[in-house]
């Protein structure tokens, strides 16, 4: 142990390791002993400042002024860490013998061993790059005492790995360490062999965890491998572009679940880590452009037939009939030869007035200075051409033609055979009316992929189809609504990358041609933005799902500024846009209400985004602000904040919030608040590690509301932690069978399949049964990953 405490640690890591590679097993044994000592020795090894007796400085000043290094302290759990080291080798040896004994006939042991093996190499992959960097810093300077200390501390631990690995001739003798981490050199073929558990996992995990693993904790800096290992190292998994690849939305925002320590997960063969497959849609790939164009033609023609319904589908003020035929590419001069048509011609005048009041209120938006100028010039030069830079125009187009597909059916084909798959019937874009009615039908039946497709068709009919991006076009209320629906559904399907691509031509949603004033002939007298407010929210929220929450916050902040400004205008007796329009008190009140709730919605998104960024302090503040705008949601919001604190681990503050909820709901009565209080109590017990009590409270909720999905699911989860797997399964299965329409939820199914995997080796059949149930009830938007049918 002495040498590791010496101050010349820097040089050790590289050289020593190689030395050790050649040592005999005795030495390895020593390493193990060392290891254990390190843990107990604690910080004794750090000598304090060298004090030369003769030069006696006045110490207190030095303390303050000289930058003295902090000393690293070894953490140990010393109080009851027993020191008995006898027999540890014996144990290892025994283990090995067992394994060897079984090696020939007992496949299970083999599996176990192989798991270890591939795990070992997995470790390699992850750590190599880090080591190098660490070593680099160690060499650099002695300022970084902490990193050196780290080296020193962790080193011994690796003692039992490294020698084994670096040993070029890992012969299967009774060298215990060798056996455990059997060097891959001795079994070159194992990597190739389909020992399923590990290989699958390592891939899945690599993809998820590798990028992050490098950053965080400067661990095991001293891992040095023999060159023979480096050959196994895979090139860093290329960040898959995840187009059409739904990511699991299962709470990835908390805890370290994302940064998984892959090492051990591989070993838990029963706990098949969810290796979500990307259900990429073949049609969405760009490698088949011909197919796409032909499809888009098809779409166009089919829409040509359906044009009438398209316009009839919305009985709104804005007539969209004529525009459909407008798609002949035009100069930016908008609609110069077209007469505006009021579709609702039989509407009484009063209704029209009222509508315009509503329109003004809802469509109000404050354009940027630049855009405002363009709009003014359009208004003043109505009959002459206004030239606008192409880059200031919005020219959207479908970026991918068809993401339609049914992952459930694909799985059925794979696991249940063609016959079963034929029975799977879901609506698709062809089977509904080619109109808003059909679109709504698809959405409510949860066939969102088909709905995205139908939106695409309708947009194609509008001239904004595939490959139309970058071509001049005109916008209508309906075309923007269609875009909103399409993009919103893409987000709902977790196809963020796709949504981003198609959002891109819209810029920051402030281009002049997105305002009604740009089309004075089509929308005479109408003002404001064509972009629905919800689309702005969607646009602002999107970057956070693509790993850029800062951009989301920026966008949300801009929205907040405009909403606040509009509210100011209203308070000052002006119209929303700051003009001097007369507004009745009643309408003003309604408008204030609308814009307050919109501002609240922006704050909501901000809070969610901050939560995603794990900036809990700000997130909690933001949720408090939301309460001001949505006072009716106070109990839910306070409970939510309480859960945030639970997630952080701050149980006391969580409890405080839960008590506040009880105070607030005390005034109200009713089932919902009662449930909320019980739910919070259950969560509190969960935070206190008391699963039995938590289960009691969840069950209590079920007594009041037997169909409460959350309570049902959570009670089942508690049962598992109490060691009652069968009971837990019974509860979940019962729930799913009782009301599959509501309970075939991703999270429930995920829990269920996880438990199936824990329960027996025959989880496959049970999962397939779930697939059948899903096939009957769920639309094409179902996220099949939760079934873990891999």
């Amino acid at each position, binding site marked *: 142990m002495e040498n590791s405490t010496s101050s010349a640690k820097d040089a050790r890591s590289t050289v020593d390791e190689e030395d050790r590679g050649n040592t005999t097993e005795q030495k390895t044994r020593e390493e193990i002993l060392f290891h254990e000592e390190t843990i107990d020795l604690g910080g004794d090894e750090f000598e304090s400042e060298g004090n030369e007796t003769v030069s006696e400085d006045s110490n207190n000043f030095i303390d303050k002024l000289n930058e003295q290094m902090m000393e690293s302290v070894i953490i140990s759990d010393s109080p009851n860490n027993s020191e008995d080291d006898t027999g540890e080798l014996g144990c290892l040896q025994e283990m090995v013998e067992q394994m060897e004994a079984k090696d020939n006939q007992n496949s299970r*042991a083999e599996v176990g061993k192989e798991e270890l093996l591939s795990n070992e190499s997995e470790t390699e992959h992850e750590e190599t790059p880090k080591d190098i960097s660490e070593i680099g810093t160690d060499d650099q300077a002695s300022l970084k005492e902490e990193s050196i200390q780290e080296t020193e501390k962790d080193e011994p631990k690796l003692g039992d790995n490294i020698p084994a690995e670096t040993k070029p001739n890992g012969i299967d003798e009774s060298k215990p360490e060798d056996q455990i981490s059997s060097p891959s050199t001795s079994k070159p073929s194992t990597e190739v062999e389909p020992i399923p558990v590990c290989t699958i996992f390592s891939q899945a995990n690599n993809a998820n965890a590798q990028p992050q693993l490098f950053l965080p904790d400067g661990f095991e800096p001293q891992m040095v491998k023999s060159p023979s290992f480096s050959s196994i190292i895979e090139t860093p998994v290329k960040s898959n572009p995840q187009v059409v690849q739904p990511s699991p939305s299962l709470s990835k925002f908390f805890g370290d679940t994302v940064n998984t320590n892959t090492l051990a997960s591989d070993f838990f063969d029963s706990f098949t880590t969810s290796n979500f497959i990307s259900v990429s849609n073949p049609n969405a790939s760009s490698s088949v452009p011909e197919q796409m164009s032909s499809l888009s033609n098809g779409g166009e023609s089919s829409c040509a037939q359906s044009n009438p319904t398209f316009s009839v589908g919305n009985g709104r003020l804005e007539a969209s009939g004529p525009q459909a035929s407008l798609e002949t590419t035009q100069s930016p001069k908008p609609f110069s030869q077209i007469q505006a048509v009021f579709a609702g011609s039989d509407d009484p005048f009063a209704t029209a007035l009222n509508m315009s009041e509503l329109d003004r209120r809802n469509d109000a938006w404050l354009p940027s200075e630049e855009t405002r100028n363009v709009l003014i010039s359009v208004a003043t030069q109505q009959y002459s051409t206004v030239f606008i830079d192409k880059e200031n125009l919005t020219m959207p187009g479908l970026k991918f033609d068809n993401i339609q597909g049914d992952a459930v059916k694909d799985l059925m084909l794979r696991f249940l055979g063609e016959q079963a798959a034929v029975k799977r019937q879901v609506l698709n874009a062809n089977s509904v009316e080619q109109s808003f009615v059909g679109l709504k039908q698809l959405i409510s039946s949860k066939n969102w992929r088909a709905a995205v497709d139908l939106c695409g068709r309708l947009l194609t009919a509008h001239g904004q189809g595939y490959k139309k991006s970058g071509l001049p076009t005109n916008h209508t209320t309906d075309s923007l609504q269609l875009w909103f629906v399409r993009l919103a559904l893409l987000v709902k399907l977790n196809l963020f990358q796709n949504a981003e691509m198609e959002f891109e031509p819209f810029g920051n949603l402030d281009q002049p041609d997105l305002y009604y004033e740009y089309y004075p002939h089509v929308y005479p007298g109408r003002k404001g933005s064509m972009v629905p407010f919800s689309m702005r929210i969607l646009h602002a929220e999107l970057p956070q799902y693509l790993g850029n929450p800062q951009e989301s916050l920026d966008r949300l902040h801009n929205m907040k500024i405009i909403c606040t400004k509009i509210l100011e205008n209203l308070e000052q007796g002006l119209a929303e846009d700051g003009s001097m329009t007369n507004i009745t008190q009643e309408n003003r009140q309604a408008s204030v209400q609308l814009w307050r709730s919109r501002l609240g919605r922006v704050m909501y998104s901000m809070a969610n985004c901050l939560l995603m960024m794990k900036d809990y302090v700000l997130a909690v503040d933001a949720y408090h602000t939301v309460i001001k705008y949505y006072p009716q949601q106070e109990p839910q919001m306070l409970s939510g904040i309480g859960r945030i604190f639970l997630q952080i681990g701050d149980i006391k503050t969580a409890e405080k919030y839960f008590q506040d909820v009880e105070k607030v709901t005390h005034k109200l009565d009713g089932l919902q608040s009662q449930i909320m209080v019980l739910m919070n109590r259950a969560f509190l017990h969960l935070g206190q590690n008391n699963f039995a009590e938590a289960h009691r409270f969840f069950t209590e909720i079920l007594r009041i509301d037997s169909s409460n999905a959350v309570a049902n699911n959570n009670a089942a989860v508690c049962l598992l932690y109490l060691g009652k797997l069968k009971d837990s399964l019974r509860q979940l299965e019962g729930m799913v069978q009782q009301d599959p329409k509501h309970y075939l939820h991703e999270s429930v199914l995920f829990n269920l399949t996880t438990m199936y995997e824990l329960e027996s080796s025959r989880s496959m059949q049970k999962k397939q049964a779930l697939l059948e149930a899903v096939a009957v009830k769920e639309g094409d938007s179902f996220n099949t990953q939760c079934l873990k049918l891999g």
Partner: protein
Amino acid sequence: MDVNQPKQEHLLALKVMRLTKPTLFTNIPVTCEERDLPGNLFNQLMKDDPSTVKGAEALMLGEMLTLPQNFGNIFLGETFSSYISVHNDSNQVVKDILVKADLQTSSQRLNLSASTAAVAELKPDCCIDDVIHHEVKEIGTHILVCAVSYTTQAGEKMYFRKFFKFQVLKPLDVKTKFYNAESDLSSVTDEVFLEAQIQNITTSPMFMEKVSLEPSIMYNVAELNTVDSAGESESTFGSRTYLQPMDTRQYLYCLKPKQEFAEKAGVIKGVTVIGKLDIVWKTNLGERGRLQTSQLQRMAPGYGDVRLSLETIPDTVNLEEPFDITCKITNCSSERTMDLVLEMCNTNSIHWCGVSGRQLGKLHPSSSLRLALTLLSSVQGLQSVSGLRLTDTFLKRTYEYDDIAQVCVVSSKVKQES
């Protein structure tokens, strides 16, 4: 999915799953307004979604618990919990089942099974469940060894085992630093300040429930991590009760030797054990961890035989203008009387005024003398007062005193203006 089906030669299947705390399901809210194309469709979809919070569907953090999706990380001081399930996959009754779970670390082997008794029989499709817990006390490789033995209907004794390996990582980085407060009369320091930096080196936020210093028997400790404001003690860390990954917090403690030890000056000289830090933290849904540092040790400052300390010194002085300081010289030796000569050596910036090499006279043990000295600085800025040498003529030993104090030297103009 033959993944989970190793060769079917054993009648029982052993499954293991680590039980980290469950997580809460988060959903992605997509809303629209009444007047938008979908009408209230999107909002209705969110209402129907069982994972949303009813009445506040746009709240991302739901209430639905989901089981851990992967092994995750395990850190020193945390509790390793695992579900062990042995399931009878066959269609025959199996007898005398014994399930044993051991944890092999690099230094020891622990038995984690709750019961050691054999189960008499296990019917088809039934299982034996066990949840094991173990507080992790070592860093590095751990191997969970699960062994199952049983007897088939035919009376054949069967046995198999499985190994699950995982790494235990270090959650915290702790660094400490001692500051000595000087006492007036003796050479023995009075108070010791301990500054501890605790860094979260995990990948998740960490709530610090307790960070306290358990002093050794010689000391009393006062924690200096709260500020009294309006009668309430407020944490110096404010409302941020948790540490983000890689965040560091600084804790401060003041240690005073207990009366009985303070008197026995000798005890506190040299290396002393100060105490240890006790750290309790919590993470996701109250997952708890606890660590203690090893005994923190400190080298008490040794002042040797002669100690020179400062009584007075101005903080700011004018450039090239003499100023006075008062030093105190103490004979710390136990029984030796000294005869001291003071030498003053100029440095680049500090120039001593007066005669160098003057006799200070005899100094008896444990007595001290005060000495007024004059000096000036020729360089602006923060200057270090150095260059005093005391020579004990009896032993011909010289003691050097450098960097005794710092003064701020300013141009005299500046001083006048201000």
